């Protein structure tokens, strides 16, 4: 039974929130990006390849990708977020690394690190996905060799209805079951490099939701590409 018939913000079930994507937003960084989806805003800055210390972390085969996800203290929709790493932010950093690693080629830079700092200035659900979208653009902006961009989005189910890009009021919907499935897609192969889920969903609904997410990714990739191209045009001038 589908009980959630109309989205609280009036969107269609398979409609993304409005996206703004920019690159080159942080001057000091080797590459940087801004990705806004609805009211969730992620900044990403890339530094590297640069020396990696302590030395025992170095890999003589290739450079390593190190991601760090962090919410600014005022970015939560409720109370102030205490600064510093939490269990949540460490896990998100870790899955973000895994989401981006398959497309990043650091074989030419042994013993180095590429640092990706992801900072959320404002959140309304979907922050890890926004962070991955920003990070992928920032890596490209930094000139890191990549096989493809990565786009991430959350899909899910709210009270029986399969949805794209849940916002906070949908994630917190209390009149029925909610499942939230953040995914990252490598568009050229259609493979997933991030897949998490919390809530309850049937296999059938899950596969439908994933299909919906995969289809939506094109719109995100388009926004990312457009931003990167615009940056190149500025450089050429």
């Amino acid at each position, binding site marked *: 039974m589908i009980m959630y018939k109309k989205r609280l913000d009036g969107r269609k079930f398979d409609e993304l929130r409005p996206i703004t994507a920019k690159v080159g937003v*942080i001057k000091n*960084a080797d590459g940087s990006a801004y990705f806004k989806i609805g009211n969730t805003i992620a*900044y990403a800055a890339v530094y590297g390849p640069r020396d990696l210390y302590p030395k025992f972390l170095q890999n003589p085969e290739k450079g390593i990708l190190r991601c760090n996800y*962090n919410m600014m*203290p*005022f970015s939560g929709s409720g*109370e102030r977020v205490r*600064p*510093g790493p939490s269990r949540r932010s460490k896990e998100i950093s870790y899955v973000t690394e895994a989401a981006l690693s398959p497309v990043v080629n650091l074989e030419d830079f042994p013993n180095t690190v590429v640092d990706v700092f992801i900072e959320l200035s404002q959140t309304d659900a979907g922050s890890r996905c926004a962070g991955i979208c920003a990070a992928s653009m920032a890596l490209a902006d930094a000139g890191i060799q990549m096989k493809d961009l990565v786009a991430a989005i959350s899909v899910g189910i709210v009270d029986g209805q399969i949805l794209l890009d849940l916002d906070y009021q949908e994630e917190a919907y209390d009149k029925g079951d909610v499942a939230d499935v953040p995914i990252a897609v490598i568009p050229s192969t259609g493979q997933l490099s991030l897949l998490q889920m919390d809530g309850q969903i049937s296999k059938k609904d899950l596969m439908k939701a994933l299909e919906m997410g995969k289809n939506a990714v094109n719109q995100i990739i388009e926004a990312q590409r457009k931003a990167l191209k615009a940056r190149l045009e500025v450089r050429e001038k």
Partner: protein
Amino acid sequence: MTEEVRRHVINYLKHDLRYDGRKNLDYRPISVEVGLIKTAEGSAKVKMGDTEVIAGVKFEVGKPYPDIPEEGTMMVNAELLPMSNPLFESGPPGIQAIELARVVDRGIRESKAIDTKKLCIKPGEQVWTVVVDLIPLNDDGNLFDAAALAAMIAIKNAKFPKLEGEKIDYKHLTDKGLPIISEPISITVLKIGEHFIVDPLGTEESVLDSRLTVATKDDGTICALQKGGSQPLSLEDVEKMIDIATTKSKELRKYLR
């Protein structure tokens, strides 16, 4: 290397010239964005050249200090994100972040910018705590002045959230702003060799002899000072630096309007 950079910077300053073409006592172009963070009760972003700082205000409800049971509290925190400068490292706030937060805090606190007596909910039991977080997005020098300006604009922009019993309803802000009595402006003057400059670039900061941050109120009263750098200052230096700061504060004050 630093010695060479220093010599180079000083050679420029002799001609009243900076790397970016400014004069010694000029600020870079400043732009301000107010209320940009929807999840904060007050916010501002200040851009000073390539230096960019966000200040966000969050309200909390807590117990008052026992010695001031009828006053609310204010706290300033700064996070020097490794995103904003390749020299910043992850981890708990270092001395740089702590100094930045405390200097901005002092300017606001000692000017009595916020009337903390009006932040009392129930004497001895419940008061408002105002937390100002300072987050640089990009550091190209002079975080002190940019952060202090952003903090004050964010404080002026802040609106109380609704209070339901002991709980804050962050979803609904009232139209009541913070009780503001005075509006401090911080100006940092650097001494490099025999030259005085304001609004240093990152490169200039790296070769400074001494710096003095001067916070002044609208009427020119000095409300906080902080000397930094490895070299001492003579009284004549201090007087000169305060004069420069007082003059410059009038220029920056217009961004508070």
